[in-house]
């Protein structure tokens, strides 16, 4: 059989379509467990336990009941506030520190860089109790209440997620050529202004990625929030565990809560995609 002669443009188009299809396939495979999550949230507990799903007759009972079983709104609001503020602060601190490490040679740069890595080496099990004791000490001797407060958790999370973010931002900055800042400084900008006005906009994809990283890790953190809160500042990861008790378990509601926790965040990130696009566009124009 003779090979079909394709024009280069047609060949390109075929490959492109093939890759498009592959992309959608990959997405489907990656989301398959999430489809299963949604399907599970639409079953009743008996069907879940037996594994015999009835996909044709979904029930929304779990979505209705989950609000009664736990105080979902309180956990959600706490999570939203704590994680957003902590992620913003972490991104801000990380971008300045990452820029310093990427562009400047200064004494203390190497120790600082290594110390940043060092913070990630400390197992949670090691500094969990001391942090709790530290909060107690602050209350007793300085009168500052951080235990079971949103501010306390924000401080802890900002500190947690800044170090890795610093390394991310530094890598992003390393990928941006110096020319732009130097041109701006030739024009009379101070280094800091050049950083803010020229470099940051170019690093928008990196900033966005860092914010998302910090936000999502904070969104999910369990070990510390379990020990450092009691009622007021409890977040979603704590709240959703209440569905599973020693004597009764509501897996359907847990799945439903998992779905409900995900949707607003997905919408927020979809809306925020604009920033990512802007950053890429800026890069294109620059070229």
């Amino acid at each position, binding site marked *: 059989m003779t090979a079909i002669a394709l024009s280069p443009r047609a060949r390109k188009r075929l490959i492109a379509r093939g890759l498009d299809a592959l992309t959608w396939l990959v997405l489907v495979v*990656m*989301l398959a467990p999430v489809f299963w999550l949604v399907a599970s949230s639409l079953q009743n507990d008996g069907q879940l336990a037996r594994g015999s799903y009835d996909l044709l007759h979904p029930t929304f009972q779990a979505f209705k009941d989950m609000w009664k079983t736990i105080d979902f709104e309180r956990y959600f609001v706490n999570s939203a506030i704590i994680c957003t503020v902590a992620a913003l602060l972490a991104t801000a601190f990380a971008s300045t520190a990452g820029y310093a490490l990427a562009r400047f040679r200064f004494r203390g740069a190497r120790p600082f860089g290594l110390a940043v890595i060092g913070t990630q080496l400390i197992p949670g099990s090691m500094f969990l109790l001391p942090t709790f004791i530290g909060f107690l000490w602050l209350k007793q001797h300085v009168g500052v209440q951080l235990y079971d407060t949103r501010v306390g958790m924000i401080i802890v999370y900002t500190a947690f997620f800044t170090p890795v973010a610093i390394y991310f931002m530094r890598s992003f900055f390393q990928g941006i050529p110096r020319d732009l800042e130097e041109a701006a400084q030739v024009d009379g900008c101070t280094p800091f202004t050049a950083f803010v006005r020229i470099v940051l906009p170019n690093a928008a994809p990196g900033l966005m990625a860092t914010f998302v990283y910090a936000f999502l890790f904070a969104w999910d953190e369990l070990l510390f929030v379990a020990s450092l809160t009691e009622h007021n500042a409890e977040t979603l990861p704590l709240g959703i565990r209440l569905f599973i008790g020693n004597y009764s378990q509501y897996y359907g509601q847990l799945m439903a809560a998992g779905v409900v926790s995900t949707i607003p965040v997905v919408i927020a990130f979809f809306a925020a995609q604009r920033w990512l696009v802007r950053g890429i566009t800026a890069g294109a124009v620059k070229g």
Partner: protein
Amino acid sequence: MSTPTLQPDVSAEVTQRRVPREPRRPRRRHRKSRLPYALIAPALVFMVFVHGLPAIGGFVLSLKKFNLFTFRQLFGAPWNGLENYRSILLDSDNPLHNGFWGAVSNTAVYTFWTVAGTLVLGMAIALLLHRKMRGQRIVRTLILVPWIVPSYVVAVLWSFMWQSDVGIVNKFLVDYTHLLGHRPVWLLGPNTMWAIVIPSIWRGIPLAVLIFLAGLAAQPQELHEAAAIDGAGPWRRFRHITLPLLRPLIAVQLLFGVIYAAYQFAIPTVMFGSNPGPDADLMMTFIVRQSFSNSLYGLGAAASTLLMLVMLVWVAVWYRAFRRDLEVT
């Protein structure tokens, strides 16, 4: 397309000056600027108070006899010197001694597969998503979803999926596609390692994709265009342009990916309870079980310190391999 954020004049000037693949320029003499110190100050303050001091506190606790009987004394508990360390390393009667090496080997296996799987698949998918295609925004948002679902829910979901009799994985492998003849048991025995590796990779891919995508987006287009014009095919462009430019990001993810995987705690605990069994017991599940569930806090702090020392070896190895990528551009 939205408005470009750069002022037009600057970009025009830059375009004229731009030459692909510039050699390193001689460094301009900087005045001893205080700017970098100001830039790192906020991060440093937080790190000292939340990481530094408590870590020292943790080390101090590891030198004390700190268990359920002395817990209420907190830092006033009696000193134990290096006894805790001796017990873990040498005393075969000590609960934290037995099972320690098993946990180490499990963690090594788990870390290797998780990090390798995450980075390789993450890179591949990022390359796919980097292309311009219809529905790009949707795809790029939805690929994050595995990461957004709370990890507790993910672990519970997978523990349902892995059930040997009614779980969907076995149903898929045996009942629907007949790929296997028998139903493997995932939640007991040697397969428990895969039962935690696979969800970990699945959950780690979105971050890797996100990072690599941002890195790919920042790569200068003209480099690729120039190489394409010179006749380089996609694979050569990838190997010689894309990959080297992504090296700093690969290095970062490798470093922290290994640390994060070695310290993994949530997924095995939620899937298996506090004792994942001899094949899936990782270092953190081992330490937390022995130190918190068994109230051997001082010993746990000592084991955590030892774990830290082990990871320092990894960092040293990484540093030698990727020292170049830490340099200032």
